[in-house]
């Protein structure tokens, strides 16, 4: 069984507010996935894309049908689309779904109404102040270091995958799961997705914290699922942000204990 993680951040798109939290998300995902807790992914299994062209995304998404694909996007977006780069500001979310039997898609971006609809309400922005839109993240941390390993929650594995208990357990859970694509969206239609410059997206960082919390608890279960991680995040998000998970009947391993 192959697996592939595609981590996309479009944090610093020309003409859009800079999002240091989106960069933090990708650093955190990378640390989390490579840890035993996250399933001991290898560097060769992880692709990181920054403001990619659509062709790069499509190329990465071409995987064999038996591959498990984990796709995470952090950046700006509208309902049904994301801002990939300054040219592709309405890249359809549906195009982020890989053509394989099992995949997880996590989109941590806003879901505001579309541009054309929004313009009906838009008030004129005074040109004198328009340039300020590019400098919103005041005194924001630009640290690329995530807090996953800093919290001492888990360690990177040095053992080969063939004998890594975490990986073997993660793999078995995946193969026992149903086929399909899990879609996890950070907020509901019309809502904004919050982020902290250092911790990352509220939703994304809570997903990973759910694994850390779960790892610290005594539990007979050795697998923490995508649905359980989502439910944890939904509990702790501000009331103005209500994430969505679909289909409710499908879940893949998110974190694993030895």
């Amino acid at each position, binding site marked *: 069984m192959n697996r592939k993680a595609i981590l996309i951040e479009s944090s610093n798109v020309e003409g859009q507010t800079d999002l240091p939290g989106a960069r933090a998300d990708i650093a955190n995902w990378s640390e989390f996935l490579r840890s035993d807790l996250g399933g001991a992914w290898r560097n060769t299994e992880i692709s990181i894309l920054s403001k990619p062209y659509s062709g790069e995304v499509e190329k990465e998404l071409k995987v064999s049908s038996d591959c498990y694909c984990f796709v995470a996007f952090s950046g700006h977006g509208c309902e049904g689309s994301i801002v990939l780069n300054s040219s592709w500001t309405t890249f359809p979310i549906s195009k982020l779904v890989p053509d394989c039997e099992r995949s997880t898609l996590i989109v941590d971006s*806003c879901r505001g109404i579309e541009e054309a609809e929004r313009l009906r309400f838009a008030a004129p922005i005074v040109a004198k102040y328009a340039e300020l839109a590019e400098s919103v993240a005041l005194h924001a941390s630009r640290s690329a270091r995530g807090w996953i390993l800093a919290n001492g929650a888990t360690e990177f594995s040095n053992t080969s995958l063939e004998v890594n208990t975490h990986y073997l357990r993660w793999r078995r859970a995946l193969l026992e799961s149903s086929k399909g694509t899990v879609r996890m969206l950070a907020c509901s239609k019309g809502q904004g997705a919050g982020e902290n410059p250092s911790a990352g997206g509220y939703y994304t960082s809570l997903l990973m914290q759910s694994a850390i919390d779960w790892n610290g608890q005594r539990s007979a279960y050795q697998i923490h699922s995508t649905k359980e991680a989502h439910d944890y995040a939904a509990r702790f998000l501000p009331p103005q942000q209500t994430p969505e998970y679909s289909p409710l009947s499908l879940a893949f391993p998110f974190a694993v204990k030895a």
Partner: protein
Amino acid sequence: MSSLNRRAILIGASPNANPIPSVYSDVARWSAFLLSSPGGAWREEEIVQLTDCDRNALRNAVSTSAGVHYSLVVFAGYGKLVKGKLPWDEAQVTLRNGDSVAERELNPGTPSCTLIFDCWASVIEERGADSSERGNPRDLDRDSAKYRALYDQSVMAAESGLAKVYALAQDGVAAPNETFSQHLLAIASRWAADNHGVLSLQEGVSLAAEARSNQRVEYHGGRRLRHFPLAVRI
């Protein structure tokens, strides 16, 4: 177009143990600004002022926001960012009786919400209001309904959700000679005198932060493409 339901909760807390006189004028200034046309022509019944309240009064005020679409909560007093259970820091403020209140308790949970924390760790002297901070009295402005509509449209055009502003003391740095609220509202009023359109909260805070080297000012608007308004001008 139907009018947007709004609620502003303006909180000033001056602890008995270490009073901050400036919080009272901060609350008064925010109220005057919101009532003015550039502030969005809020109605008096939409604004709740709480000075030196206890936790129960605070909770009651926050609970009055049920059914409201957009709420603006301003806290002036002592406060700091603390690391709790969440991956990110949240504000913790101090009431008059010394009780600590978490940021979440101040969040009314309305679909759209702005929380502004104007917090300092030591006393800031009270100073007289600059006439430019008061905005244009609404009763002198025949266009206040248009200002209100523009403000509503700006809120509706933005993604719903939570936006936060933190203006916090920095360790070892002397207190400024004016509060962040005073500074921000002065900038908003001056902007409205010279410009037309909408000054977003993001832009207003960015302008205000430029001159606040002695205070940590952060705007946490999330990943939204459109931001809530601070001031409007027809």
